[in-house]
């Protein structure tokens, strides 16, 4: 069932992100939704002259809808309150609103704005949150995402992840760009441009740096790059291939896959390239390492049992133990923030799909209905998984809620997007 198609006009994006010369915006299409959704009336805030577009309630409303946990109540034709004293709760209960978001924007000197917003419980007729922001025009979208985060947390008890960022690689012709964008795909900023492939971007735990694999040296080499000043260095450029980097939760140590001693093995190395230590042994493939959030366990893909499967081992070294048993191809593990779940790619009857694996019970749920899914990663709040898939012969990015019920596709026309990673 198609619930909503949200289109962000190019014009607005160009206005907002002019310093980054964004050429195009991603379109977002949301399908499905949770069984019981919270009904929120996003009442347009009292506008200020010269305020950026789209409206804050539009951006925040799209965020909330993409999570699948909310549906928007029609606000047309009703008296539109800007402050709690003006709210006629009868009207909003009549439209079956569970909650109400209202506010006002006031222009300040120097193209700044004062934003006040209130979250109200329409049933209990109480105020759940009230915030004010003094922002520049360039903080407009970020403020809308913060409002959505607050609404999500107050109404579901779980923090929102709308202020987080994603990284992905886009390919146009023979040009590769590593991009960092807002979680809704907007505000894209190119951090690496290359005529050679770039794969496996990974945000540092604090979001300030990004690891990736670049082929610009005629072979795969692991780089780390600051997202603040763009400075970068090679972390692993040993003889053979260097790939599959992963941050330890402390942001200092990394796991990488090297072939310097024998076929694809996992090593630990410091982010400055020092302190190399080998972790796995044997002539089989060991790759795609990822740390648990407490840093004590490594999950990885190995063919040591005869087919590609997920294994786990102590991050300090020790005996690997097989985790995935369903099917002959399970790869690309990601760990949920609470450590209870893995998301990975499972191949069944020639289809590659994202599955969610509850570690305690071993229960597996297929989250997607596409056929060529890759590179799953969890939202910082653990409520959704970002992945790459192929649609119409073109790479696109998608998110799916962990209950599998809400999917959103992020795509930009004429561009091949792949290798997504969800960051802080």
């Amino acid at each position, binding site marked *: 069932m198609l619930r909503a198609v949200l289109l962000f006009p190019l014009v607005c994006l160009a206005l907002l992100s002019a310093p980054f010369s964004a050429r195009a915006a991603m379109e977002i299409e949301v399908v499905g939704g949770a069984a019981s959704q919270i009904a929120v009336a996003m009442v347009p805030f009292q506008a200020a002259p010269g305020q950026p577009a789209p409206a804050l309630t539009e951006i925040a409303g799209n965020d909330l809808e993409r999570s699948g946990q909310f549906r928007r109540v029609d606000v047309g034709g009703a008296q539109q309150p800007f402050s709690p004293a003006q709210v006629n709760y009868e009207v909003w209960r009549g439209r079956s609103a569970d909650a109400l978001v209202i506010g006002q924007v006031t222009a300040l000197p120097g193209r700044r704005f004062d934003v006040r917003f209130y979250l109200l419980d329409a049933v209990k007729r109480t105020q759940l949150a009230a915030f004010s922001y003094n922002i520049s025009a360039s903080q407009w979208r970020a403020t809308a995402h913060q409002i959505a985060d607050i609404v999500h947390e107050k109404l579901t008890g779980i923090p929102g992840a709308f202020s987080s960022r994603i990284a992905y690689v886009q390919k146009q012709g023979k040009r590769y760009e590593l991009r960092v964008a807002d979680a809704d795909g907007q505000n894209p900023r190119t951090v*690496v441009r290359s005529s050679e492939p770039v794969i496996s971007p990974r945000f540092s735990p604090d979001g300030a740096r990004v690891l990736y694999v670049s082929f610009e040296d005629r*072979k795969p080499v692991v780089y780390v790059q600051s997202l603040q000043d763009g400075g970068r260095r090679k972390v692993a450029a040993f003889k053979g291939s260097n790939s599959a980097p992963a941050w330890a939760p402390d942001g200092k140590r990394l796991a990488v896959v090297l072939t310097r001693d024998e076929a694809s093995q996992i090593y630990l190395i410091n982010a400055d390239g020092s302190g190399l230590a080998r972790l796995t042994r044997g002539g089989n493939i060991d790759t795609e390492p990822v740390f648990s959030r407490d840093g004590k366990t490594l999950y990885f893909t190995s063919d040591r049992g005869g087919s590609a499967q997920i294994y786990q081992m102590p991050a300090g070294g020790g005996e690997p133990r097989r985790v995935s048993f369903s099917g002959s*191809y399970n790869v690309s593990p990601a760990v949920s923030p609470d450590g209870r779940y893995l998301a990975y790619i499972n191949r069944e009857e020639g289809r590659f799909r994202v599955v969610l694996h509850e570690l305690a019970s071993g229960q597996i749920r297929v989250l997607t209905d596409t056929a060529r899914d890759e590179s799953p990663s969890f939202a910082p709040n653990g409520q959704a998984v970002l992945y790459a898939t192929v649609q119409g012969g073109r790479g696109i990015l998608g998110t799916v809620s962990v209950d599998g019920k809400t999917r959103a596709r992020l795509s930009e026309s004429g561009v091949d997007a792949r290798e997504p990673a969800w960051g802080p």
Partner: protein
Amino acid sequence: MNKILWPILLALTLSACGTTGSTPATVEDRTGDKAATTAAKPAGTDTTGVSGADVSASALPAGDPRKDPASPLSKRSVHFDFDSFVVKDEYRPMLEAHAGYLLSKRDARVILQGNADDRGSREYNLALGQKRAEAVRKVLSVLGVSDAQMEAISFGEEKPRNPASTEEAYAENRRTDVVYGDE
């Protein structure tokens, strides 16, 4: 294989052990807008034309046996069956010729570039391509070629010779290319 070469090859292997590039290096900042205004690419970032099939004859001295279509040295690709890492017998003469060349020119270097088809995980395919490169490296090693003259690397699914999603294309992409350092 000439047994007299063995001590020399061993010495080469040992002397090369310390030279693998592990030193972290700061390179040109190509972030964001700065990159947009920089038209020139850093040297060595464009590898098109180095895969075996694409090398132009003019890049090498005339009479180079590696360019002679009649020579097995002009053959550069080893193809693999699905999910297999076994070098088939049909590639024996070709690899023996390359081993002979490398043994006769001890300053020659060869890069063994493994590739995979594009189904499944990019990182896992990188490891599969590496396995194919290692398979060829081991054959050359058994034929007496020094490890110091060889580097096995993988392009995974990133540089398909045939980008189509057909069985023929997949088969074409499951391969290792033999590429010389001066090409």
